[in-house]
């Protein structure tokens, strides 16, 4: 299991601390870029994140412009499973709000990408100017049946 933040998930933390689950914690920006690199055909990149910490142990480091960087490799995944707001039968995807987060980075970052969409529309319905991920990155697409959107931290203010 590769992840960047597992806080607020007590069961996960227990499994990790007891050794039941093998977890590799990765800085969030590095995780995003390892996906993007896979998506973009870049085998590796250098980032300053994690330099001087246990995350950099055993990794190649190099100085650029007076600052130390750590070499990170692109992910090599078999499946990428993403969720989008709207999609068409050509696999073009549009995300909503901050739900673009890792969905847009992971689409196409594996051998096979499977996209679940809230609304699947015929080809030609979506405006090409508004596509976030072109269909070339998506291998399978389907419209989900039920979207119960749970909110983990419901924060509100009074009127």
């Amino acid at each position, binding site marked *: 299991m590769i992840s960047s933040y597992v806080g607020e998930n007590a069961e996960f933390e227990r499994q990790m601390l007891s050794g039941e689950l093998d977890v590799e914690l990765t800085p969030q920006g590095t995780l995003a870029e390892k996906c993007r690199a896979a998506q973009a055909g870049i085998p590796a990149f250098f980032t*300053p994140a994690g330099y001087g910490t246990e995350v950099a142990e055993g990794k190649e480091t190099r100085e650029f412009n007076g600052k130390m960087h750590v070499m990170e490799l692109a992910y090599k995944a078999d499946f990428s499973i993403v969720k989008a707001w709207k999609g068409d039968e050509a696999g073009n995807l549009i995300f909503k709000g901050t739900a673009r987060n890792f969905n847009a980075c992971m689409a196409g970052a594996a051998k096979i990408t499977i996209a679940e969409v809230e609304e699947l529309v015929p080809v030609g319905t979506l405006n090409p100017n508004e596509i976030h991920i072109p269909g070339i990155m998506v291998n399978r697409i389907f419209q989900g049946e039920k979207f119960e959107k749970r909110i983990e931290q419901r924060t509100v203010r009074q009127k």
Partner: protein
Amino acid sequence: MLSKEDIAKRIAQEVKDGYYVNLGIGIPTLVANYVRTDISVEFQSENGVLGMGPFPFEGEEDADIINAGKQTITTLPGASFFDSAFSFGMIRAQKVDLTILGAMEVSENGDIANWKIPGKMVKGMGGAMDLVASAENIIVAMMHVNKAGESKILKKCTLPLTGVGCVKKVVTELAVLEITPKGFKLLERAPDVSVEDIIKATEADLIIEGDIPEMSIN
């Protein structure tokens, strides 16, 4: 001694007109409430939004519009959404002017530890390692001592590091400290807190020059 709100108020004074600011979870989140209203500031959340506004009114929450702390938020006019790779790109490229985050320990050379207590607590680093490695201006908001009464302002961090030599300033309930090439410099003390109180609560050495002014909070 300052409350958490007061710490946030003091840090809000560091936010300047035109800044893009990233706020961490906890005290840093409160800073947004106290930034002057006559200046223009945009808040970035690393999951992928610029132009974050206040929490939504009850009944107007949207599960698809949240901050990095997974809290429901609103967006202000001029806001934008983007994916997480792009978001950390703008952080790495130093487009974000100020990063405010919490910490478990800070050392006199600017090292910070805030993501792991071996064998006890492992939440993960989230975006903290990327933020501290890239941001030019990093302010830490935290309590001066931990629950056991031990100083969190140290000569050397004891916990696994999040980043090295990166913190510029620390604001606690007792003091404002600047990290200089020679170590922690005491800039301000909290109301009704003496320099001696601060020295007593601090494991690291402090550079103290002249009279130390009292913080102005408001």
